[in-house]
């Protein structure tokens, strides 16, 4: 096993435009939203914690803030924290990094967790 085995590729960084919202999939099939802000990459759950709407499909990114299209609630993509109503519950975030042009889920314990 190489050290790469503790990383899961989410998507190619080429598919994530600065200021737009990219999309990747976890091994269990769940979709995650991928963001590129000022050269840094972030990932969160795709589903808004309030209205069950898709952030990759209906969300809008402004700086570090993603706005859900359904009820206009907002989250900070760096922390997942809900910053604007009606959202109050944080979005789950995923530690990601860019390796060889891929957005990789990069936390070993989480990766192990998700592979089960």
């Amino acid at each position: 096993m190489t050290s790469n085995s503790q990383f899961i590729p989410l998507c190619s960084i080429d598919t994530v435009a600065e200021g737009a919202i990219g999309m990747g999939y976890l091994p269990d099939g769940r979709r995650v939203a991928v963001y590129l802000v000022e050269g840094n990459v972030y990932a969160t759950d795709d589903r808004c914690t309030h209205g069950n709407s898709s952030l990759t499909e209906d969300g809008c990114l402004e700086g570090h803030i993603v706005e859900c299209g359904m009820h206009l609630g907002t989250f900070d993509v760096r922390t997942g924290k809900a910053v604007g109503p009606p959202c109050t519950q944080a979005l789950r975030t995923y530690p990601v990094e860019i390796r060889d042009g891929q957005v990789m889920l990069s936390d070993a314990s989480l990766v192990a967790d998700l592979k089960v």
Partner: protein
Amino acid sequence: MSKLLSADHQSVVIVGAGLAGFNLASALVQRGYAGELTLVGDEPWQPYDRPPLSKQFQLDGDESQLWLLPELPPKVKQLRQRKAMAIDPQRQELRLDDGSTLPWDRLVLATGTRPLRLAQLDARPRVLTLRTLGDARAIRETLKFVASLLVIGGGPIGLELAASAAELGRQSIVVEKSMRLMSRSAPAAMADILLEYHRSRGIAIYLGRTVVALDEGTQEAVLDDGQRVPAGLVVVGIGVRANDELAADAGIACDDGVFVDGWCRTSAPGVFAVGDVTRQRNPLTGRFERIETWANAQGQAQALAAIWCNPDEARAYEAVPWFWSDQGSARLQCAGAITGEQQAWRVDAAGGRVLVHWSAGLVTGVATLNATRDFGPLKKLIVPRATITPEQFSAPEANIRALVQQALAA
């Protein structure tokens, strides 16, 4: 404006524990208000969110999803099932239904509204309205053993409920006395599309009709043209009136709603109001209106907390009114004015509809149906009075987000 927070001996009393009252209490705590804070509500439950009552709650009955979060800390004194009876503005006291009085330095009315009823159907069994969790429970329980739901009134709550009942396999009927749906809140052209949508899902909609009688024996309603429609359960959703009696009795200026300025002040010193109960200047129409939306209850409460806690930076509240209404799988969103002398449509690749209104060349209103992606960006054009032209908007190749960004940057 005086600094409230500098004096921690202050006492704030909020009447009404719905979204506006809860949010104000929550925001005050968050902003470090250290004085006394009492939230008086006449319902038995902890503060809860009302939008799901006509939708998700009807489908799954899951009350744990309703509570407003995060829960208020213990330092907020919450009185439940306590009705406020009278305000004494001179002595700065609020009298409650158990005879006790609460002293206040600042009093906030967040008493909301109550559904209008139909005199000819009052006191009939199985004729309900929807405002509270208690109402929603009663509707949900009744829907379990009736075959049909008749909603009187084609507004957002009625249509949401009709769609939920249809999803539950009940026969849904809507009777609306005007010639269109959602006449007070959505553009006519959008209402026509909603009408088609609901009819295509099997909901029977009668426009320009009223219910004149109920036949208990056959569980039918009789319309003004003599037609009979199923009416296992009847829910009246014809609008609301403001719970402004407490204010009116204290001599505070009201007209089916408590008049407030952009600082949430009523006509009585020290008495404020937020949420559905207020009658405030609509920044788009210039008229004093009741803005009965979730976003307003939330925004006005937040604004008042900011005004009190950070008076130097505070601004008058003049947010663009907007709302959403999820009716079955139809996601309607409207912001700003529902008319304008110019309008244009787009239909996106997935069939979502976007309707924009212009007045004097400026965007004054946006309505979308299943096009949540474009709603937020377009709504931003309403406040700063930046604009895009109908031609730019309607161009088949137009990228709405890019257009809005360009307009806002210009």
